[in-house]
Each structure stands twice: as C-alpha cells, then as structure tokens.
C-alpha cells in the first residue's frame, strides 16, 4: 500500500465476514472487499490478485512446479474438517436477504465485470456442467472442471475469434462413446437426487445446494485419481475424485478446448479464452457486497 508493506492479522468479524488489521497502521480491513473500514487508512483498498478455488488434484496437475503452504504442526488439529461447510448451514443468516429461492448459505459463483454482477448457484453449475450467459456485453462461459469441483469462468470471446462462440461439453471421452449414455444417465441421476426440489421446478427455483453436494458433487466415477501422485492415499471410496477426460467443443468450429480455456484440437488450436475472476462464496455475503447482482437461473430472461 503506497510503497509500504502491511502485515495483517485476524481482528474480528463483521456480518459474518472477517475483519483484519495491519500491524503497521492498526487500520481495520474487511476481508471480502479488501477495503479499510476504519483507522488511518480508512477508504483505502488493497489490490486484488487473481486467485481461484481449485481442487488440489487438479491444481497439482496444472502447476506441477507449484508450492503449497506448509501446515503448522501445532495447529493441525485445529484445521477445519472436511465437509465443514455443511455444519455452517445450520446457522442463521444475519444480513437481510432478498426474496428468492436461494437460501442464505447456498454457495454461489459470483462474477463482476464492468459494473455488472451475477451469481451462479453452485448446485446449478454442478448440474449443468457448462452455463453460457452474457454479462454486460461480454459473453461468458461458466464451466465445471474435470474434477467435478472446480468452477472457472471464461469470456467466450477469445482474442482472434471472429465473434462470440457457443460451447458445449461432452461428458466422456470419444473412446468411451459406447458407455457414455449409461454413465451419463447414472451421473444425472446421482446429481439430481439431492436436487429434487430444483428438478421439479427448474424455471423458478434456481438452487438450494444440498450442502455437501454443492461443494463436492459426486461423479459416480472411480476413486482412483489420474493426477500425478496417483496411488497415494488421496481418495476414499465414499467420496470419489476423478480427473478423467474433459471435453469442451465450440459450436462454430468444433475445436476441442481444455479446462484452462485453450483450444487443444481443431481449427482454433492454440487460442485461449480469457479466464475471468470469480468468487465462490455464500449467497448472503455475495448479495451483501453486490446488492445489484442478479441470480442466474434456468429459463428466466437474462
């Protein structure tokens, strides 16, 4: 901040989003906005770096040369447990919410672009796999990754592409075409099961993700991981993790794109779609800081 390095520490909570202070000035900062809300630097805003929530299995495949924050041995027992999001669902939401089908602690993928904000219910993203939308005048693509957990948002207008393109996802690899139907059907069945309410009235009820399903929709795949490090004790049978083939094709040329947003086969090979910043968080918090945000839902006008 202005040539000075600030060091932050946990200092409290404000409407369910944490507050931090910096050791250098004692200013109070809101985590989600990066804005100083009190103290000498009040009004200042930290520069937001691009980051994303991604499964470790996918991350290590994409960044095999990357490094990981070392755990603190003494605090290992204090780290939040797997599936902790589920436990938070029982707490009441403390900020006002608009009327709508989304519950306060439903997870959404929030995107803001040129003053326009939209929230994609994570359960819907998990169910659809690929969502196409337009935000402001930017055509965008929301895609669920090959790990069935990570969500990325792309601009559907790659540099060099003539106009906005349309994308669709293939569920399985071409080699497994014969088995695709059966597997896709069983997959749909598994995903729909906890989303019965959504399936019944898709047009008016975007989502209430069943807590665990939203965070980690089951794929019905095998427990083995194809990521580097295969064979390590990384996946339990109850919660399969798969990094299988993931195929995205564009309608205009039929080129094949990967989850990094780059065309790996076909006419567009070598081109990449820009990745847009997105944030996966509770609907109440997204709405609290983006009150004008719309919620994406099936069948409703954009």
């Amino acid at each position: 901040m202005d040539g000075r390095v600030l060091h932050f520490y946990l200092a409290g909570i404000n409407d369910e989003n944490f507050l931090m202070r910096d050791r250098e000035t004692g200013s109070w900062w809101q985590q989600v906005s990066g804005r100083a809300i009190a103290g000498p630097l009040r009004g200042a805003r930290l520069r937001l770096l691009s980051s994303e929530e991604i499964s470790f299995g996918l991350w290590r495949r994409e960044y095999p040369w990357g490094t990981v924050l070392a755990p603190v041995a003494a605090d290992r027992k204090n780290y939040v447990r797997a599936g902790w999001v589920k436990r938070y669902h029982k707490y009441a939401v403390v900020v006002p919410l608009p009327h709508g089908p989304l519950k306060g602690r439903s997870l959404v993928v929030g995107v803001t672009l040129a003053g326009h904000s939209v929230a994609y219910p994570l359960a819907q993203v998990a169910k659809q796999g690929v969502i196409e939308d337009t935000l402001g005048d930017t055509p965008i693509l929301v895609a669920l990754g090959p790990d069935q957990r990570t969500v990325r948002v792309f601009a559907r207008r790659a540099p060099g592409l003539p106009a906005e393109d349309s994308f669709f996802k293939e569920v399985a690899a071409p080699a497994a075409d014969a088995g695709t139907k059966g597997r896709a059907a069983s997959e749909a069945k598994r995903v729909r099961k906890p989303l019965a309410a959504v399936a019944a009235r898709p047009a008016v009820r975007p989502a209430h993700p069943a807590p665990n399903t939203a965070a980690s929709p089951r794929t019905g795949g095998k427990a083995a991981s194809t990521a580097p490090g295969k064979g390590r004790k990384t996946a339990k049978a109850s919660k399969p993790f798969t990094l299988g083939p993931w195929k995205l094709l564009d309608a205009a040329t039929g080129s094949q794109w990967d989850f990094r947003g780059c065309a790996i086969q076909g006419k567009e090979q070598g081109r990449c779609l820009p990745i847009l910043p997105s944030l996966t968080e509770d609907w109440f918090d997204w709405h609290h800081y983006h009150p004008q945000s719309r919620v994406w839902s099936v069948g409703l006008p954009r």
Partner: protein
Amino acid sequence: MRRFSFWMLIVAAVAEVLIAGIPVWVIRPFVAQPPRALALAMALRDAGGGATLLALAVIVVCAAVVLWPPRESRSGAAEGARRRRWARVTVAVAALVAGGVATGIAHVDYFQWMFHPDHDVRAIPIAQAHWPARAMVLDVHLGGQARAYPIREMGYYHVVNDRLGGAPIAATY
C-alpha cells in the same frame, strides 16, 4: 470525600466493563454487526488500552480513599458503621477485580489466543504436501510462481502474510 470516591469507584468500574465489554459483545460471530455499533466497538478497541488504564488508576485511588480506616465511630452507630464498611469493602474489591480484568482484556489481542497465526510461513513442494486430491485449495499465481493455500488450513486463521513472485501478498479466506 469518601462518599464521592465511593460513587467514582462505581462509575469507573462500570466504564471499565463497558470499554472492554462492548467490543467483545459487538464483534462476535453469528450475529449482525450494525455499522454504528461496530464503529463504536472498533474505536473502543483502539482507545481501550489507555482508557482502561486511566479508569483503573481512578479505581485504585478511590478504593484507597474508600477503604481508609474510619475515624472512631460513635458507640451507638457501631453496628451500622460495620455494615457500611463491609459494603465499601465489597464494592471496592469488586471494582478492583472488574477494573483489572477489563484492563487485561483491553490490552491483549484475544483473537490471537483463540486462533494462532502462522508466524513461520513456509511453502513446500507438492510431493511433500499430503492433502487429498479432492481437498480444495486457494490458488494464487504471481510473477511466474504458483502457490496453493489449502482451504482447510486457511479456514482456521483466515489470513497468511506471504511473499510470492517477489511481491508481498496476504492470502485470505
């Protein structure tokens, strides 16, 4: 003088409790923080160290005055005087305890006791990281480097001061 000190003692003790207690009460999880209450709580956290020390000094002085041995009381009022003295001792001790505890709370950052910050932030290569493949991590890449901040780790203290690609960053969750 003694009566004045007695009431000052009570006022200072109440002030101590409010100065230290309001931030604790307002800044707590699973409730809303109304903006004005939060502003007051943050101001009290900032000014609380000095203010509680001042109030504690007032308490100590007033307690000394209040507890100073009484002059010879008239024989007929001995019982009443003893009762009043006990009341004064009780109030003075309660004020000293409240003042001491409140001053302590105002001077320590209790969040650092409840949640321990990572004072020795280190990064390890992937091969040494034993998180399950399905565990979610926060990815940051900067200046040709990529670092994963495991969510289960970040969900505990929420903020890590780190350096990546030569730049100072704060990873938060």
